[in-house]
């Protein structure tokens, strides 16, 4: 195998770890609260801008997470409690409309406050890489993003399995009435689930903002990635999400290497379409 192919396989997998984290919050809300959060990508970008504000004082995007993550939790929790919980149980359309509206609002607020200029969360890590043999290099920032992406998936998996709140969230998605009957306040369980989803969006968003440039209107392209990860991984399966992210990242980058890098995004959409036609329940769902 030639070095360039190996290089793109490595980059694809590293990208995939981050993609999995991008899709995680979307998958969780889809599976548990049964809402398609059309604003997921915009919240990811919102996290980038919140990080940008703190960069004024801290100058290290990773350290800004200390503030960005709790802020995003609070935004998610309040949004669920004040808006989305009101329309739960009234069919699929009302929450869809609300999240669509939120997407537009977030994009326009960002445009108003930050202008349409391209931004990036500057990090010294961006230029560093580890060389493996002569022509294969691992970009350090991509490696860290991937590790962080995988780590949040594992931590969330443990949280859902071993804590009372994690079990309550799973129980609510299994049988809402039964969850209430054992004492779960389902509205607050939904609020916390949305808060956690936003925490994952915060972390993956900040890493995205370090690796790529972003604008107020970049959100929807990450929504599509998140959507692809959810479709490939199957709804609500945490580890399915991880595998799906890796597969999608790999297919996009390696596909781009074979057909030409300008087709990378297109390849992603084609994979998504093929999946929707052939296996809409996801690769990992029985």
């Amino acid at each position: 195998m030639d070095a360039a192919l190996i290089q793109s396989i490595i980059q694809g997998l590293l990208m995939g770890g981050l993609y999995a984290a991008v899709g995680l919050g979307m998958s969780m809300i889809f599976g548990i609260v049964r809402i398609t959060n059309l604003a997921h990508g915009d919240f990811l970008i919102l996290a980038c801008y919140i990080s940008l504000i703190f960069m004024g004082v801290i100058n290290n995007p990773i350290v800004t997470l200390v503030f960005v993550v709790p802020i995003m939790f609070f935004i998610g929790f309040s949004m669920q409690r004040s808006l989305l919980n009101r329309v739960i149980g009234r069919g699929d359309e009302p929450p869809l409309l609300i999240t669509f509206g939120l997407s537009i609002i977030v994009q326009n607020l960002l445009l108003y406050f930050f202008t349409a200029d391209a931004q990036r969360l500057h990090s010294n890590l961006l230029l560093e890489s580890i060389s493996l043999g002569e022509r294969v290099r691992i970009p350090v920032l991509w490696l860290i993003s991937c590790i962080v992406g995988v780590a949040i998936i594992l931590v969330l998996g443990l949280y859902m399995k071993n804590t009372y709140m994690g079990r309550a969230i799973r129980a609510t998605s299994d049988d809402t009435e039964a969850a209430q009957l054992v004492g779960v306040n389902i509205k607050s369980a939904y609020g916390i689930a949305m808060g956690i989803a936003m925490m994952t969006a915060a972390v993956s968003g900040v890493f995205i903002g370090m690796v790529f440039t972003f604008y107020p209107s970049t959100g929807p392209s990450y929504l599509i990635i998140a959507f692809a990860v959810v479709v490939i991984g199957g709804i609500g399966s945490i580890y399915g999400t991880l595998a799906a992210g890796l597969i999608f990242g790999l297919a996009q980058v390696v596909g781009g290497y074979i057909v030409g890098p300008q087709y990378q995004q297109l390849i992603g959409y084609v994979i998504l379409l093929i999946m929707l036609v052939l296996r809409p329940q996801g690769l990992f769902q029985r």
Partner: protein
Amino acid sequence: MSEILRVEGIDVFYDDFQAVQQASFTVNKGEIVSLIGTNGAGKTTLMRAIGGVLPISAGKVWYDGQDITGMMPHKIVDLGVSYVPEGRHLFNRMSVKDNLIMGSYMPRARKNAKANLEKVYELFPILKEKAEQAAGALSGGQQQMVAIGRALMGEPRVVCFDEIALGLAPTIIKDIYARVRELNAEGMTLILVEQDVRRSLKQSQRAYVMLKGKVVLEGDSRSLTEEEVSKAYFGM
């Protein structure tokens, strides 16, 4: 004997359809009360309304001297009124053990979760063997045991069992009822929702009969005759 639960003339609707009309009954501390009625009489609707899962349009529910009408379901369980739903409603994708642990979700029950889990395993030893299996994969009888165990994990004072015998083999029904009597002997107040007239009269101290959304007969289980109950039951 002191009263623990009192339902006063409640109405419950599904949209325009009135499923419960002016239903009243009381339950005393330590009693087993049965609620009998045919398919569609409104028993489940009445119980879900008491549990706060369905809205009550008129009337009141009192528990231990407190008005609990219109309270959120999770608050009502926390006060000690537990409902074991018809059709079990387990968390099918979760393990048997996680289902039981979910029963101790309320902060006041968490402290004793370990000890209560052992008690449930003592009551239904088969559940200990199946602890790690998905609840949805169990047989009907075992699922019913999980549903009962899950309610017990919340340390309730009053438990309503909605058709626990439904679809189970006679030997298993006998076994489950033996466990139910044990719980009552330990002081738990029980409501048994049943379709089987003979069984419910045998298992309870007092009985109420429902027909088309109304409570049409009440009395001591021993002094009520089967004919009398059957007549009320079928509305003859």
